[in-house]
């Protein structure tokens, strides 16, 4: 029998199916919507889209953010309850991407929100998003 800490035990009880908040902003969202559709059905893994951040586990930042929308994203992040995960999609969140010389977009997402996982691509394919969610389950399983 493996001895696990209290935190690991609670995490294993809570994270069985992850719920995603509906912050579909900028280009990357166009490859998150087929995940809800009937070809790459995400409900068979237990994931659904919820309408309020207080019920959500995961926040997807799917692409570039401007100075106006990053303020709203920060307020949404503060309303989510622990345990929470932030996943950054696309190359615009890493170094500025295609709009590196624009005066109004932010260049490094880690200066504004604590990011847990980056997915490269422009935009990343739906299979890559599923692999990222699989990594969350893996991480919870290996927690001590």
């Amino acid at each position: 029998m493996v001895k696990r800490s209290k935190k690991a035990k609670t995490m294993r009880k809570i994270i069985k199916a992850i719920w995603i908040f509906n912050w579909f902003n900028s280009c990357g969202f166009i490859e998150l919507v087929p995940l809800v559709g009937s070809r790459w059905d995400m409900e068979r893994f237990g994931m659904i889209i919820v309408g309020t951040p207080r019920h959500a586990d995961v926040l997807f930042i799917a692409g570039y953010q401007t100075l106006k929308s990053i303020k709203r994203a920060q307020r949404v992040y503060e309303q989510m309850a622990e345990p929470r995960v932030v996943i950054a999609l696309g190359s615009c969140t890493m170094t500025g991407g295609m709009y590196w010389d624009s005066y109004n977009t932010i260049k490094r997402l880690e200066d504004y929100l604590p990011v847990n996982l980056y997915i490269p691509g422009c935009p990343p394919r739906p299979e890559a998003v599923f692999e990222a969610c699989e990594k969350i389950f893996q991480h919870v399983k290996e927690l001590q």
Partner: protein
Amino acid sequence: MIDEIEPAPKDSDYDFYFGPAHPGSGNFGVKLKIDGERVVSARADPGYLHRGFEKLMEYRTPIQNAVLSDRLCVLEPLNWNLVHAEAVDELMGIDVPERAKYIRVIMAELSRIQSHIIWYGVFSIGTGFDTGFKMAFGYRDYILDLFELITGGRVYPAGYICPGGVRRDFPNGARDKILKVLDKMDEMIKLEELENPALDVRAKGVGILKVKDAIRLGATGPVLRGSGMKTDVRKDEPYEIYDRLDFEVPVRNEGDAYARYWIGIEEMKQSIKIVKQALEDLPDGEVTVPEFKRPKVKVKMPQGEVYIRNEVARGEAAVYMVSDEGSEPYRCKIRGPDFLHMIPVLECLLKGAQIADVPAIYWSLNICPADMDR
């Protein structure tokens, strides 16, 4: 003591922000003032996606701009690619080969079908029909697989329609695959035409826009055709090969949300007809002009200015390009259809509407915040 309910005192309107984190609104916010159940006034709040495209294009050469022009509106990238490529072609005086013109029209019409499928999906979810949304996005993937076969990317084709023609020719077997996908689209349209009774109540008579108001507020495309005016840029000033093709322009007179939705479905049928005709008449030959074949990164554009208008899925799109004998454009102004639909038309239609009708009106205008903010 509940036998007498007093009406609310005067000036007790409350503010309601239908904003970007709302599940029914997309990347755009509208500030509503509401009195009971009626909207008194609406004020649009754009700017969540502003990147400054017009000046970004001044730092890049035309071939680099072809890749950037996909991202003007993420829901219909190939149509915007076409507008930009036509502007550079006319400025430099290039005559595009025949086979390239046919291929451009086929890709643009497939992209229009794909964009109308998204419109059907989000309009269904706005009026409470979730199954329509899931089914629409399932069928849309057939077209995205076609795009991946021909251009290399599911969503962004990396500047496939570039100045001078298209980047590469169709691979072997593409023609049969396109015909099979069009059969699947016919099947989907038959399913879409079986309407549910809830649509009658939620969409008929809601959000009426008269013709005089539509022209004064600057509406174009399906919004103007739904109010009764028969106009289409593909028929008024034909570009590429649209003057050789035979298709109709659907028009309705009521101007409500149901009329616009019906026009979306009819336009899909006409686009399927156009693609079948273009595939039959596809000639052989080269697909790029010789000077763009091995593209040198610096190409000089002669002095001049052009204004090109095209019909994208949402309305009239235009590019005004000025060149000053450099290797980059001096000024590139982009006019999108949604700039007019989302600010003046939406504020006019939402006044006096009931709060439960706000999603049906909002999604029937087929908005795309990315090409409003640019």
